[in-house]
């Protein structure tokens, strides 16, 4: 049984006189216990909004969330707010993109860690401080007792992200959502953080929903990958399958945009044209059509549906998918 089942999630911003815009447009996926699932796409594709909707961190006003999301047997969207508050930080936790801005600048690290222990684990005073130090130690922060008294601006970037991770794993959640956890970090630090996450997931059996635009991250860590474009999943497959047979032209393009050392000299990168702003409304056809090399008139006759043109469990939303394996990627280890 899956830990998290997301079914036709929609998130709509606006209303009250303003033009509505649909940030997430019917996204469905599942996360099993201990599984690492990736949500991939360019910024603006709706992946972060999906994570916030799952956590219940979207603002109360001006946002409508539709569809269903079942976590551990309960529907997140119909839950009462206080039960959901209890769930946050304990059963499901989240790590954010920018560790500096995600930490309160005027509160010592220690307090920011202990407050979650006080809240969910009923710990107090010295015990909470000890546990906090232990947590910091576990995420690889040296000299944790001293760090507890320090403020975020006194820590390095990687250290801050570790502190955030420490907070997220403080209550041994069954689901951890990581929203671009490495984007704001130096490359060397990125690897360390990814390693740390992987380690935690392996040790605790925590499920991880990894939200990223970086296919490198996906390749390194995810079991299952969902590629989002303009609020809809366009391709969904296991990691190996996806990298071996990218079938949606968008996924194909994403992979083609990554510079590769093993590519023949002189072969140029193939960036995707335009930006996510150049799009067609899903109702009219494929949103990716304006940027697509394989664009056909058929792309503009209504919303394309998910199908499995290549293999079972490999869903693709495309009228004209890439089915020849000429450019098949090597499966990363």
């Amino acid at each position, binding site marked *: 049984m899956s830990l998290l089942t997301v079914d036709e999630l929609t998130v709509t911003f606006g209303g009250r006189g303003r033009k509505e815009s649909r940030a997430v447009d019917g996204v469905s996926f599942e996360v099993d216990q201990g599984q690492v699932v990736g949500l991939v796409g360019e910024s603006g594709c709706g992946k972060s909004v999906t994570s916030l909707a799952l956590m219940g961190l979207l603002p109360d006003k001006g946002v409508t969330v539709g569809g269903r999301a079942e976590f551990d047997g309960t529907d997140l969207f119909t839950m009462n707010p206080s039960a959901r508050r209890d769930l946050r930080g304990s059963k499901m936790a989240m790590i954010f993109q920018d560790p500096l801005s995600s930490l309160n600048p005027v509160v010592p690290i220690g307090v920011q860690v202990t407050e979650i222990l006080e809240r969910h684990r009923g710990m107090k005073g010295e015990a909470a401080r000890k546990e906090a130090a232990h947590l910091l130690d576990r995420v690889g922060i040296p000299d944790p007792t001293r760090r507890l008294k320090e403020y975020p601006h006194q820590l390095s970037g990687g250290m801050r992200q570790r502190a955030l991770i420490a907070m997220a794993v403080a209550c041994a959640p069954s689901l951890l959502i990581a929203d671009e956890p490495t984007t704001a970090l130096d490359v060397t630090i990125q690897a360390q953080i990814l390693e740390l996450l992987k380690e935690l997931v392996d040790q605790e059996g925590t499920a991880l929903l990894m939200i990223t635009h970086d296919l490198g991250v996906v390749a390194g860590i995810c079991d299952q990958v969902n590629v989002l474009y303009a609020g809809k999943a366009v391709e969904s497959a296991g990691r190996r399958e996806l990298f071996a047979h990218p079938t949606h032209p968008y996924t194909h393009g994403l992979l083609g945009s990554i510079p590769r050392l093993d590519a023949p000299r002189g072969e140029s990168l193939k960036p995707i044209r335009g930006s996510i702003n*150049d*799009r*067609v409304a899903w109702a009219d*056809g494929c949103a990716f059509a304006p940027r697509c090399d394989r664009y056909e008139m058929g792309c*503009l006759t209504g919303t394309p549906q998910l199908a499995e043109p290549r293999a079972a469990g490999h869903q693709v939303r495309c009228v004209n998918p890439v089915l020849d394996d000429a450019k098949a990627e090597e499966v990363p280890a």
Partner: protein
Amino acid sequence: MSVATKSEKIQRLAELTATKETGTGASLWREAFRRLKRSKMAIIGAIIISLFVVLAIVGPYIAPHAATAQAWRGEVFPNRGEFVGPRGENWFGLDHLGRDMFSRMLIGARQTLLVGIIATMIGLVTGFLIGGISGAAATLGGDAGKRIDSVIMRFIDMLLAMPSLLLAVSIAAIMGQSLTTVMIAVGVVQIPVFARLLRGSMLAQGGADYVLAAKSLGVRKRRIVVSQIIPNSLSPVIVQATLSLATAIIEAAALSYLGLGNPDPAIPEWGVMLTQAQRFFDNAPLMALYPAVGIIITALGFTLFGEAMREALDPKLRG
């Protein structure tokens, strides 16, 4: 698979993508203006301001009576507490010397606006110069510049440390009483505000990437200041100028209350009218209320517009 021509395909795409927003390159100001048009505050403010300005321009011409005409002198007895309220002939009633309040309010609008504008201009221009020099010295003048800046700022701090109203009172004491004095006194008080604002804004801009880029390209410092830093530092100053118009009108009224208002009865200014009328508040409250409400609404107009502008220009406050 359909067999459409390339042009058809492009045509169809264009139709479908045309509805969404284009043009991300709108300037800060155009963007701000667009937001202003949507802001209720800005609209109310703009309406009040334009009404007031129109009044200030045409008021003296449409006023039914002269400001000084004590046409109904015999009908008002301040020493017996007998006043004449609104009536057909005099819409707002008579003042304590038998003059038509309605006409005086109309004529007074122009004086009030003039005091506000000129006082603000004095504060703006002087403050702009001081702040500009200080800001330019601090951003681009090196160590010597920083020293100049710090001396200027100490001076500005001293001005700020002195209660503004007392500063204004003492200026009035030096210059004697006149409309010019009121304008200068109110304006001088605004100098440190503008100076600090422009300097602060320039310092913030001074560290911006484009300034660093210009510096590294060897663009002359004066050019950087004049063509880059200052234009980009203007928006808070412009907002403050709008807000200062309101403050200036209120401060001018306060000066009148302290007996330093414009002395010429032929130039009825609302602050002076309010001060004179409040002596009779017990007998003829309306006489004080007209100018008071006039001042409050006008100040409100400028404040609303200024605040709306601030919000429109400040991306943080947007929403």
